[in-house]
């Protein structure tokens, strides 16, 4: 007689696959969306890129081995690089600056900080970007990052420290910028 268990096993595998995809989305989508939004500075674009990321997740869920965060990061990174490559080739960069006079000073500072962080993140090394993504956008603990990346927890701590130092260098206004910023505030 035929062994019908193969069909029930397959159905269970499909169901598991769906559960895993849902679980991945519920755990990581907010962080992925947030990171992509921070990088591209455009909500619609961020939605499109995040959507593409999760479509890739659905299609390639069979390739997931071990911890999902690094795998997800590799998809996010490749989709972002594709976006920046395409933008370099085709699209015009929107350089329009909002009317800062109409905004309260806190909002101006906040916006300025966001754009500085955006450019700083893009200048970090791949490893540092991955660590920042996991730590500040996925809210993972050092132990979780260590498990996912195969590093030790202390190593992760040191890498976070270095990444922040690097960001600080990029975020802090350079000397020639200071008078301009002061003038704007006046």
């Amino acid at each position, binding site marked *: 007689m035929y062994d019908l268990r193969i069909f029930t096993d397959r159905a269970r595998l499909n*169901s*598991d*696959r*769906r*559960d*895993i*995809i*849902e*679980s*991945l*989305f*519920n*755990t990581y*989508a*907010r*962080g992925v*969306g*947030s990171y*992509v*939004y*921070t990088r591209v*500075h455009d*909500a619609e674009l*961020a*939605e499109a890129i*995040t*959507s593409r990321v*999760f*479509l890739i*997740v*659905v*299609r390639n869920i*069979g*390739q*997931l*081995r*071990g911890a999902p965060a690094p795998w997800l990061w590799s998809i996010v990174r490749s989709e972002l690089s594709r976006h920046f490559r395409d933008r370099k080739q085709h699209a015009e960069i929107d350089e329009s600056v909002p009317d800062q006079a109409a905004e309260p000073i806190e909002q101006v500072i*906040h916006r300025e*900080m966001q754009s500085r*962080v955006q450019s700083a993140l893009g200048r970090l090394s791949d490893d540092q970007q991955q660590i*920042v993504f996991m*730590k*500040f*956008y996925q*809210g993972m*603990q*050092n*132990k979780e990052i260590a498990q996912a990346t195969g590093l030790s*927890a202390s*190593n*992760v*701590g*040191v890498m*976070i*420290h270095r990444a*922040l*130092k690097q*960001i*600080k260098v990029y*975020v802090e206004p350079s000397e020639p910028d200071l008078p301009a910023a002061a003038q704007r505030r006046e």
Partner: protein
Amino acid sequence: MHEMAFNIASADPHPRPLPSTGEGVSGCTLGNTQHSALFRMPPRSTQLPADLTDHWPDDPANEDLARLAGDLVSTRRELPTISLDRIQLRMRQEVIRTGRRRRWRTIAALFVLVIAGYMGVRAFLTARTSSNTTTHASRGGDSTPVQDRFQVTLPAATPKAPNRPLIDLSRHSALFGGPTSQPSKP
């Protein structure tokens, strides 16, 4: 089959809650599984990670770096919930599409297998039958012999053979060294 190394229960500590309303997302079911009950858990915190400064090397700038980390978290852009809902809906549609595609692929593969099997069996049977005939003929067994039949018409009256011999050998015995005898006059 792919081996899933990802454990849902352990890797999903702070998933995003499912949207309760909006664009039909809440009513979306996959197969017989309603996933909303599985993932109703609090979202990840937007506060600074508690173990942020763990394993940091001694550095006078640590305080500044911790403040910068706070800025990083507070200036983080968040995709609106409606965007996340749309992404989730697209992802679920893709899950269904992928499942359907996989099912069709399985059916097509089974169909090809059945056809190939049928052709194989047929070819095998044909080959076996022809080889049997050849073997039988070469053995010269009870194959039907060729028969030629000709219709011959005999004349109605045939001349009768004479009673006396055509040559009377006793009259010519001299020829064979015997006593001569005058042939009697008839």
